[in-house]
């Protein structure tokens, strides 16, 4: 069975600073994807960044980057130059080929002015 753990229920960061959200997972598969999703109050699940497990290079998307440690099964998200619009719930998710998404419990991030 696949599991995803996010050990930080809540985080806060000052505007323009950097914050890192933690995620660990467990899977017995070799081919999988990892994702970070942002969910604002509108409920829309918005893809922030994704990582293919077979790629060693960490994914980056503008201010968002990940630290993917496959052996340790760790997948943290770093948000640089935090903006007020980054305030939301953040979910780490895993999907194996031919199976469904497994989500973590989420981290509520507040960006403070």
């Amino acid at each position: 069975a696949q599991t995803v753990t996010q050990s930080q229920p809540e985080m806060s960061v000052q505007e323009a600073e950097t914050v890192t959200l933690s995620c660990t997972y467990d899977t017995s598969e070799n081919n999988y994807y990892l994702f970070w999703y942002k969910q604002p109050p509108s409920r829309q699940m918005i893809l922030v960044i994704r990582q293919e497990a077979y790629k060693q290079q960490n994914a980056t998307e503008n201010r968002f980057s990940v630290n993917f440690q496959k052996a340790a099964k760790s997948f943290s998200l770093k948000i640089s130059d935090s903006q007020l619009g980054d305030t939301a719930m953040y979910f780490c998710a895993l999907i194996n080929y031919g199976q469904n998404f497994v989500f973590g419990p989420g981290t509520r991030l507040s960006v403070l002015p």
Partner: protein
Amino acid sequence: GAGVSQTPSNKVTEKGKYVELRCDPISGHTALYWYRQSLGQGPEFLIYFQGTGAADDSGLPNDRFFAVRPEGSVSTLKIQRTERGDSAVYLCASSPSGMEGMAEAFFGQGTRLTVV
């Protein structure tokens, strides 16, 4: 359409009633997923379709829950004899088929179901 569309956006129903929630996936997406998200929690898997067939329905909590996708496009999640504990946001996602398709999944805005 441009994205995954879920209707209605909000649904209030009385305990014991029957409800249907609709998901209209992105055109051409063969995989379709239903999730349930309770307040303050992460989405929990319900059922996954590949084309018209349910590839995995192990997440359906009991036999009051049923989902169909008769033509491999629109899907309907059906809940019979609703209970207050069914109150949640129901999310739908779709993706193209294949390994690479998983990376292209998109979610709808969800239906908030409230059972009173």
